[in-house]
C-alpha cells in the first residue's frame, strides 16, 4: 500500500475500504452481490488441527468448480470456540461450521457453495435444546459475550492492513495525534477507568501520567506479550488475530507520554504471533503509521520485537526490562517504578496486550461508553481462557461483573462428561481455587481478591471431582518453584520447603504438624518475597487450604486421596466379579497380575506401579480403586 500522509487521507481510505467487509457485515438480504466469503480460523489452536490444509483444499476445490470469481477464502484470527475447532464461517449466509476437516471441503463446495444447501452435520448443536444452530450470534457460547479486545478476531484477515483500516484501524491514532494534546489523551484513558489486564489491575491512565511527567530525552513503550500463565492464551490470540490494534495503541501511548520507541516483548514459543506481528509492523511502516512524521505530523514512533526465552518471571515488568537489556530476567525493588526509571534507566511504560487492544476502541467510541460497562471498580470487559474439565474450551470475553456461574455454565456449557464441578482456578500460579459455593461471585479485580484468588491474566481452569486439590496446589507450586529466579531467599527456599511439605502430604508421609507449618510458611513467603511471583506463589496453597482443608486432612490422617489421584495412597484390587478374561494381565506393564484363564486374577501389590491400566481395561468393572 502507499504511504498515507494525513488523517484526512486515512479517513478516505477507511471509507473506501469499508465495503471490503460488506459481505461479512450486512445481512444476507441486504447483500445483492452474488458472492461469498469463507473465513477459516487461523489461530494456533485451529492451525494445530490442520486448518491451513483446509484452506488450501478449499481454494483448490473452488478453482476446480470454476467459482474463483465468486468465492474468496480468508484466514482470520481466533473465533474463541476452540473446543469445536477448526471453525469455518461462510458469508453472507452467516453460517458457522464446526470441527471442519479436510475431508469435509468437497461437501462444503458441492452442497453449500454450488447448491446453497447448509450442511447440517457440521453445525453446532445446542446441548439444552438439541437444535442445530447456524448463526454465531444465536449460539449460547456467544450470547453473553461482549467483544472489545477481541472485536476483530474472527472478523478480519490479520495479514491485510486494509481490512484493519476498514474496521477503523489507526483512526484513533490519527485522531489523537492531530486533534488531542498529551494531557487530553491521558485524561480520556483515565476517565475510561481502564485497568491493566495483565493481572495487577493498575489504572492505565495513571501509569501513563506518571511517565509523562518525567522529563527525559528518550522514553519507551513496552508491550508485555510474555504470556507465561499456563492455560492462558488471550494475548497470543489477540496478536495473531488483530496485531494492528496493538501497534496502534502503542503509538498512541508513545504520543501520550512522549516516547518514540516501542518494544514488543513476546514469547519465542509463539511463532505464529511473531510471524503475524512482523507482517503487521512492515505494513504499518509502509502506510506511514509507524516511522518518522506519522500521518504528516511531527510525531515519530517505531516498534521492535524482542523475544523472551522461557522465563515466567519475565512477565514481571522489572524482570522483563532486564531481559530486553540482555541480562538475566531478575526483578528489582520498586520504587523507582519503570515509569520513572525503566528500560536503560529511561521512563518506560509496560502495558499488557489486552490492555492495549482496548485503547483504540475506547478512543473511537468514547470513555463514557467504556466506563458504562462493568462494575463500580472494574470497567469494560475481560477475556478469559476457559479450559480444563469444561465442555466449551475457548476464549471468552465478558463484561466485568459477569458471574463465574454464567461463564462456566451458560457460556462454557458446564463440566465435561456430566461430572460434578469441584473448583475453578483463576489467576494461574498466582491465583487461587474457588469452590462451588462461590460460583455466584460477580467477577472483578476486588471480588476475586476478596475470595483468595485474583484476576491474573485471565486463565480459568475448571476442575471436577476427579481432580485432587492437594495435587493441584502442588502442581502450581512446582511451577512457581521452577520459575523462581532465585534472587530472594523467601521465594527460592520458602517455595522449596512448601513443595516438600506438599510432596509429603501427597505421598502419605505427612503429619498434622505439617499442615500448620504449611500455613505459616505460606504466609511468610507471601509477605516477604521481593516480586509478584513470590508474593503470590502461595495463593494456590492458601486458597485450597481455605476451601478444601478436608482433602488435606484425608491425605494426612486417613492416608487416602479422595479423588483417587495421588498414586502412593491408592490401591487396586480385583474383586470376585472377575471373569478371568486375562485382559488386565496382558495390559499390565510390569506383569504383576496373575491368574489362569477363566479364573479370578490377583494383583501383586508389592510390584504394582498403580498405573491404572487394568482398571481402565476391565470389561466387567471387577477392579476397584481404594
Amino acid at each position, binding site marked *: 500500500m502507499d504511504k498515507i500522509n494525513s488523517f484526512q487521507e486515512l479517513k478516505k481510505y477507511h471509507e473506501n475500504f469499508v465495503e471490503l467487509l460488506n459481505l461479512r457485515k450486512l445481512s444476507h438480504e441486504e447483500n445483492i452481490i452474488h458472492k461469498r466469503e469463507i473465513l477459516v480460523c487461523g489461530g494456533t489452536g485451529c492451525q494445530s488441527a490442520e486448518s491451513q490444509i483446509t484452506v488450501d483444499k478449499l481454494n483448490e476445490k473452488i478453482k476446480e468448480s470454476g467459482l474463483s470469481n465468486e468465492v474468496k477464502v480468508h484466514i482470520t484470527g481466533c473465533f474463541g470456540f476452540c473446543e469445536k475447532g477448526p471453525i469455518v464461517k461462510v458469508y453472507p449466509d452467516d453460517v458457522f461450521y464446526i470441527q471442519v476437516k479436510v475431508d469435509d471441503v468437497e461437501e462444503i463446495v458441492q452442497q453449500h457453495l454450488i447448491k446453497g444447501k447448509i450442511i447440517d452435520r457440521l453445525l453446532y448443536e445446542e446441548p439444552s435444546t438439541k437444535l442445530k444452530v447456524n448463526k454465531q450470534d444465536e449460539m449460547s457460547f456467544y450470547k453473553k459475550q461482549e467483544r472489545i479486545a477481541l472485536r476483530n478476531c474472527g472478523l478480519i484477515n490479520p495479514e491485510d492492513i486494509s481490512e484493519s483500516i476498514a474496521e477503523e484501524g489507526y483512526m484513533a491514532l490519527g485522531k489523537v495525534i492531530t486533534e488531542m494534546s498529551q494531557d487530553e489523551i491521558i485524561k480520556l484513558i483515565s476517565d475510561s477507568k481502564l485497568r491493566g489486564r495483565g493481572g495487577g489491575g493498575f489504572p492505565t491512565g495513571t501509569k501513563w501520567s506518571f511517565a509523562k511527567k518525567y522529563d527525559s530525552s528518550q522514553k519507551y513503550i513496552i508491550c508485555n506479550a510474555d504470556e507465561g500463565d499456563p492455560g492462558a492464551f488471550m494475548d497470543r490470540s489477540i496478536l495473531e488475530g488483530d496485531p494492528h490494534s496493538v501497534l496502534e495503541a502503542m503509538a498512541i501511548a508513545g504520543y501520550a507520554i512522549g516516547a518514540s520507541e516501542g518494544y514488543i516483548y513476546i514469547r519465542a514459543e*509463539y511463532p505464529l504471533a511473531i510471524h503475524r506481528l512482523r507482517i503487521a509492523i512492515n505494513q504499518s511502516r509502509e502506510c506511514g503509521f509507524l516511522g518518522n512524521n506519522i500521518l504528516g505530523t511531527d510525531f515519530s514512533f517505531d516498534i521492535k520485537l524482542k*523475544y523472551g526465552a522461557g522465563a515466567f518471571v519475565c512477565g514481571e515488568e522489572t524482570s522483563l526490562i532486564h531481559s530486553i537489556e540482555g541480562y538475566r530476567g531478575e526483578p528489582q525493588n520498586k520504587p523507582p517504578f519503570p515509569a520513572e526509571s525503566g528500560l536503560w534507566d529511561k521512563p518506560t511504560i509496560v502495558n499488557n496486550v489486552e490492555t492495549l487492544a482496548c485503547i483504540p476502541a475506547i478512543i473511537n467510541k468514547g470513555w463514557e461508553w467504556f466506563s458504562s460497562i462493568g462494575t463500580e471498580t472494574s470497567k469494560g470487559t475481560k477475556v478469559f481462557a476457559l479450559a480444563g474439565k469444561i465442555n466449551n474450551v475457548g476464549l471468552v470475553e465478558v463484561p466485568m461483573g459477569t458471574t463465574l456461574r454464567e461463564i462456566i455454565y451458560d457460556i462454557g456449557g458446564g463440566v465435561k462428561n456430566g461430572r460434578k464441578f469441584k473448583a475453578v482456578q483463576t489467576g494461574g500460579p498466582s491465583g487461587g481455587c474457588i469452590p462451588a459455593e462461590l460460583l455466584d461471585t460477580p467477577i472483578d479485580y476486588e471480588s476475586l481478591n476478596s475470595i483468595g484468588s485474583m484476576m491474573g491474566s485471565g486463565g480459568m*481452569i475448571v476442575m471436577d471431582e476427579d481432580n485432587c486439590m492437594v495435587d493441584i496446589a502442588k502442581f502450581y507450586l512446582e511451577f512457581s518453584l521452577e520459575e523462581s529466579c532465585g534472587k530472594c531467599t523467601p521465594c527460592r527456599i520458602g517455595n522449596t520447603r512448601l513443595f516438600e511439605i506438599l510432596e509429603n502430604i501427597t505421598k502419605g508421609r505427612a503429619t498434622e504438624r505439617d499442615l500448620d507449618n504449611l500455613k505459616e510458611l505460606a504466609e511468610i513467603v507471601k509477605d516477604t518475597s521481593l516480586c509478584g511471583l513470590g508474593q503470590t506463589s502461595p495463593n494456590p496453597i492458601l486458597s485450597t487450604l481455605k476451601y478444601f482443608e478436608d482433602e488435606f486432612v484425608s491425605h494426612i490422617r486417613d492416608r487416602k486421596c479422595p479423588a483417587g489421584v495421588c498414586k502412593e495412597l491408592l490401591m487396586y484390587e480385583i474383586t470376585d466379579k472377575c471373569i478371568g478374561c486375562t485382559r488386565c494381565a496382558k495390559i499390565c506393564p510390569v506383569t504383576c497380575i496373575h491368574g489362569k484363564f477363566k479364573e479370578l486374577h490377583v494383583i501383586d501389590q508389592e510390584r504394582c506401579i498403580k498405573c491404572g491400566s487394568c482398571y481402565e481395561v476391565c470389561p466387567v468393572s471387577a477392579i476397584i480403586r481404594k
Partner: protein
Amino acid sequence: MSSNTLPNEKFKELEEFIKTVPIDRGSLIEVLHKAQEIFGYLPEEVQDFVGEKLHISTSSVYGVVSFYSYFTTEPRGKYVISICTGTACFVRGAADILGEFERRLKITTGETTPDKKYTIETLRCVGACGLAPIVTVNGKVYGHFKTNDVIKILEEYSE
C-alpha cells in the same frame, strides 16, 4: 566437547547474523536464539564465540544461557517429544502421559536416550487448550492424547 565437532560454516553463518545487529548487550538474547537455531544447542565454544563477538565475558553469556529455560547446553535427540504440562493439559492427565514416555524410554524429563534418538521435554502451554492434553514431536501437535497413544508415537518415530 572439542571444537572440531562443530562445523566452521555454522560459525560463519552466526557471524554473518551478528553483523546485522548492534554490537551491545541488548542483542545478546537475540544472538543466542539464532545460535541455538543454527547449532541446535549452545555448547561452551558457541558461548565463547558469542561473548567475543559482542564484547561480553563468557561467564555473563553463561549466566544468561543458564537462566532461560529455552536455551540448552546439551545436544538434543533426533525427535524432541514435548509434553504440555500447562494447567489445562495437567487437569486432563498430562502427568500420566509424561510418566508413560519416561517409563518406556527409560529416561527422565530433559534427558536424551543414549542412541540420541529421543529427548523428552515438558512445555508450558502451546495455547491449543481445546485439544488438551497435547504432545508435540519436533513441533508437530498431537491433540487429545491418551497414555495408550505413547506407544503409537514411538512407533511412528522409530526410524
